Protein backbone atom coordinates (compact mmCIF):
# COMPACT_ATOMS: atom_id res chain seq x y z
CA UNK A 1 0.00 0.00 0.00
CA UNK A 2 1.20 3.42 -0.90
CA UNK A 3 0.50 6.20 1.55
CA UNK A 4 -0.36 9.64 0.27
CA UNK A 5 -0.12 12.19 3.02
CA UNK A 6 -0.88 15.35 1.08
CA UNK A 7 -3.81 17.47 2.19
CA UNK A 8 -5.77 17.02 -1.04
CA UNK A 9 -5.61 13.24 -0.85
CA UNK A 10 -6.73 13.33 2.78
CA UNK A 11 -9.70 15.47 1.80
CA UNK A 12 -10.47 13.15 -1.09
CA UNK A 13 -10.42 10.08 1.16
CA UNK A 14 -12.66 11.88 3.67
CA UNK A 15 -15.09 12.77 0.87
CA UNK A 16 -15.25 9.18 -0.33
CA UNK A 17 -16.06 7.90 3.16
CA UNK A 18 -18.63 10.62 3.73
CA UNK A 19 -20.39 9.51 0.58
CA UNK A 20 -20.36 5.85 1.64
CA UNK A 21 -21.64 6.83 5.09
CA UNK A 22 -24.37 8.98 3.57
CA UNK A 23 -25.49 6.15 1.32
CA UNK A 24 -25.61 3.59 4.12
CA UNK A 25 -27.33 6.06 6.46
CA UNK A 26 -30.09 6.66 3.91
CA UNK A 27 -30.41 2.96 3.25
CA UNK A 28 -30.86 2.17 6.93
CA UNK A 29 -33.17 5.15 7.45
CA UNK A 30 -35.32 3.94 4.56
CA UNK A 31 -35.56 0.43 6.00
CA UNK A 32 -36.02 1.90 9.48
CA UNK A 33 -38.94 4.05 8.39
CA UNK A 34 -40.73 0.97 7.03
CA UNK A 35 -40.15 -0.94 10.26
CA UNK A 36 -41.15 2.03 12.44
CA UNK A 37 -44.32 2.60 10.45
CA UNK A 38 -45.31 -1.06 10.75
CA UNK A 39 -45.35 -0.74 14.57
CA UNK A 40 -47.01 2.69 14.65
CA UNK A 41 -50.49 3.37 15.96
CA UNK A 42 -50.73 6.75 14.29
CA UNK A 43 -47.88 8.52 12.53
CA UNK A 44 -48.73 11.85 10.96
CA UNK A 45 -46.58 14.94 10.88
CA UNK A 46 -44.15 13.98 13.64
CA UNK A 47 -40.68 12.47 13.86
CA UNK A 48 -41.91 9.36 15.61
CA UNK A 49 -45.34 7.77 15.86
CA UNK A 50 -47.74 8.59 18.66
CA UNK A 51 -47.75 5.04 20.02
CA UNK A 52 -46.59 1.53 19.33
CA UNK A 53 -48.60 -1.57 18.47
CA UNK A 54 -48.22 -4.94 16.84
CA UNK A 55 -51.79 -5.21 15.64
CA UNK A 56 -50.87 -4.32 12.03
CA UNK A 57 -49.12 -7.64 11.74
CA UNK A 58 -52.22 -9.61 12.57
CA UNK A 59 -54.36 -7.40 10.35
CA UNK A 60 -51.88 -7.71 7.45
CA UNK A 61 -51.74 -11.45 8.03
CA UNK A 62 -55.49 -11.78 7.50
CA UNK A 63 -56.04 -8.93 5.00
CA UNK A 64 -53.39 -10.06 2.55
CA UNK A 65 -53.85 -13.77 3.26
CA UNK A 66 -50.18 -13.93 4.04
CA UNK A 67 -50.39 -17.54 5.09
CA UNK A 68 -51.45 -18.64 1.60
CA UNK A 69 -49.02 -16.24 -0.06
CA UNK A 70 -46.09 -17.47 2.03
CA UNK A 71 -47.02 -21.06 1.32
CA UNK A 72 -47.12 -20.42 -2.44
CA UNK A 73 -43.84 -18.50 -2.21
CA UNK A 74 -42.02 -21.36 -0.53
CA UNK A 75 -43.53 -23.94 -2.86
CA UNK A 76 -42.45 -21.94 -5.92
CA UNK A 77 -39.00 -21.28 -4.50
CA UNK A 78 -38.57 -24.91 -3.47
CA UNK A 79 -39.52 -26.20 -6.90
CA UNK A 80 -37.25 -23.67 -8.62
CA UNK A 81 -34.30 -24.54 -6.37
CA UNK A 82 -34.65 -28.30 -6.89
CA UNK A 83 -35.18 -28.17 -10.65
CA UNK A 84 -32.51 -25.58 -11.36
CA UNK A 85 -30.11 -27.53 -9.14
CA UNK A 86 -30.67 -30.78 -11.03
CA UNK A 87 -30.55 -29.27 -14.51
CA UNK A 88 -27.86 -26.72 -13.71
CA UNK A 89 -25.32 -28.98 -12.03
CA UNK A 90 -25.53 -31.73 -14.65
CA UNK A 91 -25.24 -29.24 -17.52
CA UNK A 92 -22.37 -27.45 -15.77
CA UNK A 93 -20.55 -30.77 -15.44
CA UNK A 94 -20.86 -31.46 -19.17
CA UNK A 95 -19.75 -27.93 -20.04
CA UNK A 96 -16.81 -27.99 -17.63
CA UNK A 97 -15.47 -31.35 -18.78
CA UNK A 98 -16.11 -31.54 -22.51
CA UNK A 99 -15.20 -29.42 -25.49
CA UNK A 100 -17.48 -29.96 -28.44
CA UNK A 101 -18.69 -28.30 -31.59
CA UNK A 102 -21.50 -25.87 -30.84
CA UNK A 103 -20.41 -25.27 -27.23
CA UNK A 104 -20.13 -21.55 -27.91
CA UNK A 105 -23.75 -21.37 -29.08
CA UNK A 106 -24.91 -23.26 -26.00
CA UNK A 107 -22.91 -20.92 -23.76
CA UNK A 108 -24.50 -17.94 -25.51
CA UNK A 109 -28.00 -19.32 -24.90
CA UNK A 110 -27.02 -19.81 -21.25
CA UNK A 111 -25.57 -16.32 -20.85
CA UNK A 112 -28.36 -14.39 -22.57
CA UNK A 113 -31.10 -14.91 -19.94
CA UNK A 114 -28.73 -13.44 -17.36
CA UNK A 115 -27.91 -10.38 -19.45
CA UNK A 116 -31.29 -9.66 -21.02
CA UNK A 117 -33.46 -8.08 -18.31
CA UNK A 118 -36.45 -10.14 -17.14
CA UNK A 119 -39.03 -7.66 -18.32
CA UNK A 120 -37.70 -7.82 -21.91
CA UNK A 121 -37.97 -11.59 -22.26
CA UNK A 122 -40.79 -11.82 -19.73
CA UNK A 123 -43.37 -10.27 -22.05
CA UNK A 124 -42.88 -12.72 -24.95
CA UNK A 125 -42.58 -15.55 -22.40
CA UNK A 126 -45.82 -14.53 -20.71
CA UNK A 127 -47.50 -14.37 -24.13
CA UNK A 128 -46.47 -17.95 -24.89
CA UNK A 129 -47.48 -19.13 -21.41
CA UNK A 130 -50.89 -17.44 -21.67
CA UNK A 131 -51.54 -19.05 -25.03
CA UNK A 132 -50.61 -22.50 -23.78
CA UNK A 133 -52.69 -22.02 -20.64
CA UNK A 134 -49.72 -22.31 -18.29
CA UNK A 135 -49.83 -18.72 -17.11
CA UNK A 136 -51.57 -18.18 -13.82
CA UNK A 137 -50.74 -21.70 -12.67
CA UNK A 138 -48.14 -22.79 -10.16
CA UNK A 139 -46.01 -24.50 -12.81
CA UNK A 140 -46.20 -21.46 -15.08
CA UNK A 141 -44.60 -19.36 -12.35
CA UNK A 142 -41.97 -22.03 -11.70
CA UNK A 143 -41.19 -22.32 -15.42
CA UNK A 144 -40.76 -18.56 -15.80
CA UNK A 145 -38.47 -18.40 -12.78
CA UNK A 146 -36.28 -21.20 -14.12
CA UNK A 147 -35.19 -19.11 -17.10
CA UNK A 148 -32.64 -17.01 -15.18
CA UNK A 149 -31.89 -19.51 -12.39
CA UNK A 150 -30.73 -22.50 -14.48
CA UNK A 151 -28.08 -20.39 -16.29
CA UNK A 152 -27.11 -18.87 -12.95
CA UNK A 153 -26.45 -22.29 -11.41
CA UNK A 154 -24.51 -23.36 -14.50
CA UNK A 155 -22.26 -20.30 -14.43
CA UNK A 156 -21.58 -20.59 -10.71
CA UNK A 157 -20.88 -24.32 -10.91
CA UNK A 158 -18.56 -24.44 -13.94
CA UNK A 159 -15.51 -23.04 -12.08
CA UNK A 160 -16.24 -25.27 -9.09
CA UNK A 161 -16.26 -28.37 -11.28
CA UNK A 162 -13.16 -27.28 -13.18
CA UNK A 163 -11.28 -27.21 -9.87
CA UNK A 164 -11.85 -30.92 -9.29
CA UNK A 165 -9.02 -33.07 -10.58
CA UNK A 166 -10.33 -35.27 -13.44
CA UNK A 167 -7.98 -38.02 -12.23
CA UNK A 168 -10.29 -38.56 -9.25
CA UNK A 169 -13.06 -39.41 -11.67
CA UNK A 170 -10.74 -41.59 -13.71
CA UNK A 171 -9.80 -43.47 -10.54
CA UNK A 172 -13.47 -44.01 -9.69
CA UNK A 173 -14.05 -45.31 -13.20
CA UNK A 174 -11.12 -47.70 -12.90
CA UNK A 175 -12.74 -49.12 -9.77
CA UNK A 176 -15.91 -49.70 -11.74
CA UNK A 177 -18.16 -46.78 -10.83
CA UNK A 178 -20.80 -45.93 -13.41
CA UNK A 179 -21.79 -42.32 -14.12
CA UNK A 180 -24.52 -42.31 -11.48
CA UNK A 181 -22.25 -43.74 -8.78
CA UNK A 182 -19.54 -41.31 -9.83
CA UNK A 183 -21.91 -38.40 -9.28
CA UNK A 184 -23.26 -39.60 -5.95
CA UNK A 185 -20.07 -40.88 -4.31
CA UNK A 186 -17.29 -38.78 -5.82
CA UNK A 187 -18.58 -35.56 -7.33
CA UNK A 188 -21.42 -34.68 -4.99
CA UNK A 189 -19.37 -34.64 -1.77
CA UNK A 190 -16.69 -32.55 -3.47
CA UNK A 191 -19.17 -30.17 -5.08
CA UNK A 192 -21.46 -29.78 -2.10
CA UNK A 193 -20.13 -26.38 -0.96
CA UNK A 194 -20.51 -25.02 -4.48
CA UNK A 195 -23.99 -26.47 -4.94
CA UNK A 196 -25.10 -25.14 -1.58
CA UNK A 197 -23.83 -21.66 -2.42
CA UNK A 198 -25.45 -21.67 -5.86
CA UNK A 199 -28.80 -22.94 -4.61
CA UNK A 200 -28.95 -20.50 -1.70
CA UNK A 201 -28.34 -17.67 -4.13
CA UNK A 202 -31.07 -19.05 -6.38
CA UNK A 203 -33.37 -19.14 -3.36
CA UNK A 204 -32.72 -15.51 -2.43
CA UNK A 205 -33.03 -14.36 -6.03
CA UNK A 206 -36.29 -16.23 -6.57
CA UNK A 207 -37.94 -14.81 -3.43
CA UNK A 208 -37.06 -11.34 -4.73
CA UNK A 209 -37.76 -12.02 -8.43
CA UNK A 210 -40.56 -9.60 -9.15
CA UNK A 211 -40.87 -9.10 -12.90
CA UNK A 212 -41.22 -12.68 -14.13
CA UNK A 213 -43.59 -13.78 -11.39
CA UNK A 214 -45.63 -10.61 -11.80
CA UNK A 215 -46.09 -11.14 -15.55
CA UNK A 216 -47.02 -14.80 -15.25
CA UNK A 217 -48.75 -15.25 -11.88
CA UNK A 218 -52.50 -15.52 -11.37
CA UNK A 219 -54.42 -14.78 -8.17
CA UNK A 220 -53.57 -18.16 -6.63
CA UNK A 221 -49.94 -18.30 -7.72
CA UNK A 222 -48.70 -14.94 -6.42
CA UNK A 223 -45.49 -14.86 -4.48
CA UNK A 224 -44.86 -12.50 -1.58
CA UNK A 225 -43.08 -9.83 -3.62
CA UNK A 226 -45.93 -9.67 -6.16
CA UNK A 227 -48.53 -9.46 -3.39
CA UNK A 228 -46.49 -6.62 -1.88
CA UNK A 229 -46.46 -4.82 -5.23
CA UNK A 230 -50.24 -5.02 -5.53
CA UNK A 231 -50.62 -3.80 -1.95
CA UNK A 232 -48.39 -0.78 -2.58
CA UNK A 233 -50.03 -0.20 -5.96
CA UNK A 234 -53.47 -0.06 -4.33
CA UNK A 235 -52.20 2.14 -1.49
CA UNK A 236 -55.05 4.08 0.05
CA UNK A 237 -57.33 1.07 0.12
CA UNK A 238 -55.56 -0.27 3.20
CA UNK A 239 -53.73 1.38 6.07
CA UNK A 240 -50.11 2.28 5.29
CA UNK A 241 -48.99 0.48 8.44
CA UNK A 242 -50.61 -2.72 7.24
CA UNK A 243 -48.68 -2.55 3.96
CA UNK A 244 -45.51 -1.79 5.88
CA UNK A 245 -46.12 -4.78 8.15
CA UNK A 246 -46.30 -6.92 5.04
CA UNK A 247 -43.12 -5.28 3.73
CA UNK A 248 -41.40 -6.22 7.00
CA UNK A 249 -42.56 -9.81 6.64
CA UNK A 250 -41.09 -9.80 3.14
CA UNK A 251 -37.83 -8.25 4.37
CA UNK A 252 -37.46 -10.80 7.14
CA UNK A 253 -38.15 -13.69 4.74
CA UNK A 254 -35.51 -12.44 2.31
CA UNK A 255 -32.88 -11.36 4.81
CA UNK A 256 -32.97 -14.59 6.84
CA UNK A 257 -32.02 -16.51 3.72
CA UNK A 258 -29.49 -13.86 2.73
CA UNK A 259 -27.74 -14.24 6.09
CA UNK A 260 -27.70 -18.01 5.70
CA UNK A 261 -26.39 -17.63 2.16
CA UNK A 262 -23.65 -15.24 3.22
CA UNK A 263 -22.18 -17.90 5.49
CA UNK A 264 -21.28 -19.82 2.34
CA UNK A 265 -20.66 -17.18 -0.32
CA UNK A 266 -18.80 -13.97 -0.78
CA UNK A 267 -21.20 -11.02 -1.15
CA UNK A 268 -19.64 -10.02 -4.48
CA UNK A 269 -20.72 -13.38 -5.87
CA UNK A 270 -24.33 -12.27 -5.70
CA UNK A 271 -23.54 -9.67 -8.31
CA UNK A 272 -20.70 -11.07 -10.37
CA UNK A 273 -22.50 -14.36 -10.93
CA UNK A 274 -19.50 -16.55 -11.55
CA UNK A 275 -16.32 -16.83 -9.58
CA UNK A 276 -13.63 -14.60 -10.96
CA UNK A 277 -10.97 -16.57 -12.75
CA UNK A 278 -7.35 -15.65 -12.08
CA UNK A 279 -6.22 -13.31 -14.80
CA UNK A 280 -3.45 -15.46 -16.14
Amino acid sequence: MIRDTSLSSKLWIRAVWIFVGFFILNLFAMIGSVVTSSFATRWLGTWFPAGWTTRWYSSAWSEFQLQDVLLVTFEVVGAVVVISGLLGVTAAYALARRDFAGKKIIMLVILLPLIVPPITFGIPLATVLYQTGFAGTFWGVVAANLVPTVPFVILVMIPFIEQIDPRLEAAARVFGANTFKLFVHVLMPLLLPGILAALLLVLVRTIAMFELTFLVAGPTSQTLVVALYYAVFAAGVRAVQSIDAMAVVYMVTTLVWLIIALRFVNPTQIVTRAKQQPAH
Partner: protein
Amino acid sequence: MTMTVLAEKQIIESGPSLHQRLAARGFDAVTLLVIPAFALLALLFVYPFAYGLILSFEPKAGSAWSNYQRFFTDPYLYTTIWKTLLLSVPVTVLNLVVSLPVAFRVRLMYRQRLLTTILVVPITLGTVLIAEGLLNYLGPQGWFNRTLIAVGLIDHPLRLVHNYWGVFASLLINGFPFTFLLVLSYVTGIDPALEQAAATLGANARQRFTSVFLPILMPGLAITFCLSFVQAFSVFPSAVLLGEPAGQTRVISIAAYQAAFEEYDYSMASAIAMIMGIVQLAIVLGMMATRGLFYRGPVAGTKG
Protein backbone atom coordinates in the same frame (compact mmCIF):
# COMPACT_ATOMS: atom_id res chain seq x y z
CA MET B 1 3.18 -62.08 -34.54
CA THR B 2 1.78 -61.90 -38.04
CA MET B 3 -1.70 -62.28 -36.50
CA THR B 4 -1.35 -59.14 -34.39
CA VAL B 5 0.05 -57.17 -37.27
CA LEU B 6 -2.91 -58.25 -39.38
CA ALA B 7 -5.35 -57.31 -36.66
CA GLU B 8 -3.74 -53.91 -36.25
CA LYS B 9 -3.88 -53.43 -39.99
CA GLN B 10 -7.59 -54.19 -39.94
CA ILE B 11 -8.23 -51.65 -37.23
CA ILE B 12 -6.32 -49.01 -39.15
CA GLU B 13 -8.24 -49.80 -42.32
CA SER B 14 -11.70 -49.83 -40.78
CA GLY B 15 -10.87 -46.78 -38.66
CA PRO B 16 -12.22 -45.98 -35.23
CA SER B 17 -15.87 -46.65 -34.58
CA LEU B 18 -18.50 -43.90 -34.75
CA HIS B 19 -18.61 -43.91 -30.97
CA GLN B 20 -14.85 -43.29 -30.77
CA ARG B 21 -14.93 -40.61 -33.43
CA LEU B 22 -17.72 -38.76 -31.64
CA ALA B 23 -15.89 -39.09 -28.32
CA ALA B 24 -12.76 -37.64 -29.91
CA ARG B 25 -14.81 -34.59 -30.91
CA GLY B 26 -16.14 -34.27 -27.39
CA PHE B 27 -19.50 -36.00 -27.83
CA ASP B 28 -20.16 -38.81 -25.39
CA ALA B 29 -22.62 -39.69 -22.64
CA VAL B 30 -21.35 -36.85 -20.45
CA THR B 31 -21.96 -34.28 -23.16
CA LEU B 32 -25.58 -35.38 -23.30
CA LEU B 33 -26.05 -34.06 -19.75
CA VAL B 34 -26.22 -30.57 -21.19
CA ILE B 35 -29.38 -31.41 -23.13
CA PRO B 36 -32.06 -31.05 -20.39
CA ALA B 37 -30.92 -27.57 -19.39
CA PHE B 38 -30.48 -26.51 -23.00
CA ALA B 39 -33.90 -27.86 -23.96
CA LEU B 40 -35.51 -25.95 -21.11
CA LEU B 41 -33.84 -22.69 -22.17
CA ALA B 42 -34.68 -23.32 -25.82
CA LEU B 43 -38.31 -23.84 -24.87
CA LEU B 44 -38.66 -21.01 -22.36
CA PHE B 45 -36.23 -18.43 -23.68
CA VAL B 46 -35.29 -18.90 -27.33
CA TYR B 47 -38.71 -20.03 -28.52
CA PRO B 48 -40.69 -17.23 -26.80
CA PHE B 49 -38.25 -14.67 -28.16
CA ALA B 50 -38.57 -16.02 -31.70
CA TYR B 51 -42.33 -16.31 -31.26
CA GLY B 52 -42.53 -12.74 -29.99
CA LEU B 53 -40.47 -11.49 -32.91
CA ILE B 54 -42.79 -13.17 -35.42
CA LEU B 55 -45.89 -12.14 -33.48
CA SER B 56 -44.76 -8.51 -33.55
CA PHE B 57 -45.07 -8.66 -37.35
CA GLU B 58 -48.61 -10.02 -37.17
CA PRO B 59 -50.55 -7.02 -35.85
CA LYS B 60 -54.23 -7.00 -35.05
CA ALA B 61 -54.82 -4.77 -38.08
CA GLY B 62 -52.72 -3.37 -40.90
CA SER B 63 -49.51 -4.41 -42.60
CA ALA B 64 -46.67 -6.41 -41.09
CA TRP B 65 -44.78 -3.32 -39.97
CA SER B 66 -47.80 -1.45 -38.60
CA ASN B 67 -46.94 -2.15 -34.93
CA TYR B 68 -43.54 -0.57 -35.40
CA GLN B 69 -45.06 2.24 -37.45
CA ARG B 70 -47.55 2.91 -34.69
CA PHE B 71 -44.80 2.93 -32.08
CA PHE B 72 -42.66 5.45 -33.92
CA THR B 73 -45.52 7.77 -34.92
CA ASP B 74 -47.47 7.84 -31.64
CA PRO B 75 -45.72 10.32 -29.32
CA TYR B 76 -47.24 8.56 -26.29
CA LEU B 77 -45.25 5.49 -27.31
CA TYR B 78 -42.01 6.66 -28.90
CA THR B 79 -41.27 9.21 -26.18
CA THR B 80 -40.98 6.28 -23.75
CA ILE B 81 -37.57 5.45 -25.26
CA TRP B 82 -36.35 8.96 -24.54
CA LYS B 83 -37.87 9.00 -21.05
CA THR B 84 -36.26 5.67 -20.19
CA LEU B 85 -32.89 6.79 -21.52
CA LEU B 86 -33.20 10.05 -19.57
CA LEU B 87 -33.51 7.98 -16.40
CA SER B 88 -31.16 5.10 -17.07
CA VAL B 89 -28.15 6.80 -18.67
CA PRO B 90 -27.57 9.49 -15.97
CA VAL B 91 -28.12 6.95 -13.19
CA THR B 92 -25.72 4.44 -14.74
CA VAL B 93 -23.03 7.06 -15.36
CA LEU B 94 -23.42 8.45 -11.84
CA ASN B 95 -23.25 4.98 -10.28
CA LEU B 96 -20.13 4.16 -12.25
CA VAL B 97 -18.37 7.45 -11.55
CA VAL B 98 -19.08 7.19 -7.83
CA SER B 99 -18.29 3.47 -7.59
CA LEU B 100 -14.78 3.90 -8.93
CA PRO B 101 -13.26 6.05 -6.13
CA VAL B 102 -15.14 4.10 -3.48
CA ALA B 103 -13.85 0.80 -4.87
CA PHE B 104 -10.31 2.21 -4.87
CA ARG B 105 -10.63 3.01 -1.18
CA VAL B 106 -12.36 -0.21 -0.23
CA ARG B 107 -9.72 -2.34 -1.96
CA LEU B 108 -7.23 -1.17 0.69
CA MET B 109 -9.55 -2.21 3.53
CA TYR B 110 -8.88 -5.36 5.49
CA ARG B 111 -12.49 -5.88 6.53
CA GLN B 112 -14.37 -5.42 3.28
CA ARG B 113 -16.90 -8.06 4.12
CA LEU B 114 -19.05 -5.92 6.43
CA LEU B 115 -19.39 -3.17 3.84
CA THR B 116 -20.08 -5.53 0.96
CA THR B 117 -22.66 -7.35 3.09
CA ILE B 118 -24.48 -4.11 3.86
CA LEU B 119 -24.45 -3.18 0.19
CA VAL B 120 -25.85 -6.54 -0.88
CA VAL B 121 -28.99 -5.87 1.20
CA PRO B 122 -30.71 -3.44 -1.21
CA ILE B 123 -29.94 -5.71 -4.18
CA THR B 124 -31.48 -8.63 -2.34
CA LEU B 125 -34.55 -6.76 -1.16
CA GLY B 126 -35.38 -5.75 -4.70
CA THR B 127 -37.10 -2.81 -6.31
CA VAL B 128 -40.58 -3.31 -4.88
CA LEU B 129 -39.51 -3.06 -1.27
CA ILE B 130 -37.22 -0.12 -2.00
CA ALA B 131 -40.12 1.64 -3.71
CA GLU B 132 -42.30 1.13 -0.63
CA GLY B 133 -39.49 2.24 1.67
CA LEU B 134 -38.73 5.36 -0.33
CA LEU B 135 -42.41 6.30 -0.45
CA ASN B 136 -42.21 6.54 3.34
CA TYR B 137 -38.74 7.95 3.63
CA LEU B 138 -38.72 10.55 0.84
CA GLY B 139 -42.38 11.54 1.22
CA PRO B 140 -43.35 15.04 2.34
CA GLN B 141 -43.63 13.84 5.96
CA GLY B 142 -40.70 11.43 5.72
CA TRP B 143 -37.48 11.55 7.68
CA PHE B 144 -35.45 12.84 4.73
CA ASN B 145 -37.49 16.01 4.25
CA ARG B 146 -37.83 16.48 8.01
CA THR B 147 -34.08 16.36 8.46
CA LEU B 148 -33.50 18.88 5.67
CA ILE B 149 -36.05 21.24 7.23
CA ALA B 150 -34.62 20.74 10.72
CA VAL B 151 -31.11 21.48 9.47
CA GLY B 152 -32.47 24.57 7.79
CA LEU B 153 -31.58 23.72 4.20
CA ILE B 154 -35.16 24.08 2.96
CA ASP B 155 -38.34 25.77 4.15
CA HIS B 156 -40.97 23.37 2.95
CA PRO B 157 -40.72 19.70 1.91
CA LEU B 158 -39.20 18.86 -1.46
CA ARG B 159 -41.39 16.84 -3.78
CA LEU B 160 -39.31 13.68 -4.15
CA VAL B 161 -41.86 10.95 -4.82
CA HIS B 162 -44.33 10.39 -7.64
CA ASN B 163 -41.97 12.08 -10.05
CA TYR B 164 -38.63 11.64 -11.85
CA TRP B 165 -36.55 11.95 -8.69
CA GLY B 166 -38.32 9.15 -6.87
CA VAL B 167 -37.43 6.70 -9.62
CA PHE B 168 -33.94 8.20 -9.83
CA ALA B 169 -33.41 7.59 -6.10
CA SER B 170 -34.64 4.01 -6.33
CA LEU B 171 -32.33 3.30 -9.27
CA LEU B 172 -29.47 4.79 -7.27
CA ILE B 173 -30.17 2.68 -4.17
CA ASN B 174 -30.53 -0.47 -6.25
CA GLY B 175 -27.90 0.31 -8.85
CA PHE B 176 -25.03 1.74 -6.84
CA PRO B 177 -24.35 -1.45 -4.82
CA PHE B 178 -24.61 -3.54 -7.97
CA THR B 179 -22.21 -1.31 -9.91
CA PHE B 180 -19.88 -0.95 -6.93
CA LEU B 181 -19.55 -4.69 -6.29
CA LEU B 182 -18.82 -5.33 -9.97
CA VAL B 183 -16.22 -2.55 -10.07
CA LEU B 184 -14.70 -3.79 -6.81
CA SER B 185 -14.22 -7.26 -8.23
CA TYR B 186 -12.35 -5.76 -11.19
CA VAL B 187 -10.28 -3.38 -9.08
CA THR B 188 -9.18 -6.04 -6.60
CA GLY B 189 -8.13 -8.22 -9.53
CA ILE B 190 -5.29 -5.83 -10.38
CA ASP B 191 -1.90 -6.74 -9.00
CA PRO B 192 -0.82 -4.09 -6.43
CA ALA B 193 2.75 -4.51 -7.72
CA LEU B 194 1.77 -2.53 -10.80
CA GLU B 195 0.88 0.45 -8.67
CA GLN B 196 4.02 0.10 -6.59
CA ALA B 197 6.10 0.00 -9.75
CA ALA B 198 4.43 3.17 -11.00
CA ALA B 199 5.00 4.86 -7.65
CA THR B 200 8.64 3.83 -7.65
CA LEU B 201 9.00 5.46 -11.03
CA GLY B 202 7.67 8.67 -9.53
CA ALA B 203 4.03 8.70 -10.64
CA ASN B 204 1.71 10.57 -8.29
CA ALA B 205 -1.76 9.34 -7.35
CA ARG B 206 -3.47 11.02 -10.30
CA GLN B 207 -0.90 9.73 -12.78
CA ARG B 208 -1.10 6.21 -11.35
CA PHE B 209 -4.86 6.29 -11.77
CA THR B 210 -5.00 7.74 -15.28
CA SER B 211 -2.08 5.90 -16.84
CA VAL B 212 -1.97 2.60 -14.95
CA PHE B 213 -5.34 1.71 -13.49
CA LEU B 214 -7.76 3.32 -15.90
CA PRO B 215 -6.43 1.65 -19.07
CA ILE B 216 -6.47 -1.75 -17.33
CA LEU B 217 -9.96 -1.15 -15.94
CA MET B 218 -11.59 0.18 -19.11
CA PRO B 219 -12.82 -3.18 -20.47
CA GLY B 220 -14.25 -4.09 -17.07
CA LEU B 221 -15.87 -0.68 -16.72
CA ALA B 222 -17.43 -1.08 -20.16
CA ILE B 223 -18.98 -4.41 -19.09
CA THR B 224 -20.13 -2.89 -15.81
CA PHE B 225 -21.71 0.00 -17.67
CA CYS B 226 -23.56 -2.41 -19.96
CA LEU B 227 -24.90 -4.61 -17.14
CA SER B 228 -25.94 -1.65 -15.00
CA PHE B 229 -27.48 0.17 -17.93
CA VAL B 230 -29.52 -2.83 -19.02
CA GLN B 231 -30.84 -3.16 -15.47
CA ALA B 232 -31.75 0.50 -15.24
CA PHE B 233 -33.29 0.57 -18.70
CA SER B 234 -35.75 -2.16 -17.78
CA VAL B 235 -36.95 -0.32 -14.65
CA PHE B 236 -40.55 -1.23 -14.00
CA PRO B 237 -41.98 -1.51 -10.46
CA SER B 238 -40.35 1.63 -9.10
CA ALA B 239 -41.39 3.64 -12.17
CA VAL B 240 -44.99 2.68 -11.42
CA LEU B 241 -44.94 2.99 -7.64
CA LEU B 242 -42.50 5.85 -7.09
CA GLY B 243 -42.83 7.69 -10.36
CA GLU B 244 -45.48 9.26 -12.45
CA PRO B 245 -46.46 6.30 -14.62
CA ALA B 246 -48.70 8.32 -16.90
CA GLY B 247 -46.25 11.17 -17.42
CA GLN B 248 -42.63 11.87 -16.63
CA THR B 249 -41.62 8.30 -15.86
CA ARG B 250 -43.73 6.42 -18.37
CA VAL B 251 -40.83 4.15 -19.25
CA ILE B 252 -40.83 1.69 -22.11
CA SER B 253 -41.56 -1.33 -19.91
CA ILE B 254 -44.78 0.34 -18.72
CA ALA B 255 -45.80 0.82 -22.36
CA ALA B 256 -45.09 -2.86 -23.08
CA TYR B 257 -46.95 -3.97 -19.95
CA GLN B 258 -49.99 -1.85 -20.77
CA ALA B 259 -50.12 -3.14 -24.33
CA ALA B 260 -50.05 -6.73 -23.11
CA PHE B 261 -52.19 -6.68 -19.98
CA GLU B 262 -54.47 -3.68 -20.37
CA GLU B 263 -55.13 -3.65 -24.12
CA TYR B 264 -54.53 -7.41 -24.52
CA ASP B 265 -52.62 -6.63 -27.72
CA TYR B 266 -49.83 -9.21 -27.40
CA SER B 267 -48.61 -8.42 -30.89
CA MET B 268 -48.01 -4.76 -30.00
CA ALA B 269 -46.52 -5.77 -26.63
CA SER B 270 -44.07 -8.09 -28.37
CA ALA B 271 -43.14 -5.30 -30.78
CA ILE B 272 -42.40 -2.97 -27.83
CA ALA B 273 -40.40 -5.70 -26.08
CA MET B 274 -38.37 -6.18 -29.26
CA ILE B 275 -37.75 -2.42 -29.52
CA MET B 276 -36.68 -2.45 -25.87
CA GLY B 277 -34.27 -5.30 -26.61
CA ILE B 278 -32.91 -3.54 -29.69
CA VAL B 279 -32.19 -0.28 -27.82
CA GLN B 280 -30.39 -2.24 -25.08
CA LEU B 281 -28.46 -4.22 -27.66
CA ALA B 282 -27.48 -1.04 -29.53
CA ILE B 283 -26.06 0.58 -26.39
CA VAL B 284 -24.29 -2.63 -25.33
CA LEU B 285 -22.78 -3.14 -28.80
CA GLY B 286 -21.72 0.49 -28.85
CA MET B 287 -19.92 0.07 -25.55
CA MET B 288 -18.34 -3.21 -26.60
CA ALA B 289 -17.06 -1.62 -29.79
CA THR B 290 -15.17 0.95 -27.73
CA ARG B 291 -13.78 -1.87 -25.61
CA GLY B 292 -11.61 -2.91 -28.52
CA LEU B 293 -9.81 0.43 -28.30
CA PHE B 294 -8.45 -0.33 -24.84
CA TYR B 295 -5.86 -2.64 -23.38
CA ARG B 296 -6.90 -6.24 -22.95
CA GLY B 297 -4.62 -8.75 -21.39
CA PRO B 298 -3.10 -9.93 -18.15
CA VAL B 299 -3.48 -7.60 -15.18
CA ALA B 300 -1.14 -9.48 -12.90
CA GLY B 301 2.54 -8.69 -12.86
CA THR B 302 4.76 -11.45 -14.15
CA LYS B 303 8.42 -12.07 -13.61
CA GLY B 304 9.89 -11.17 -16.98
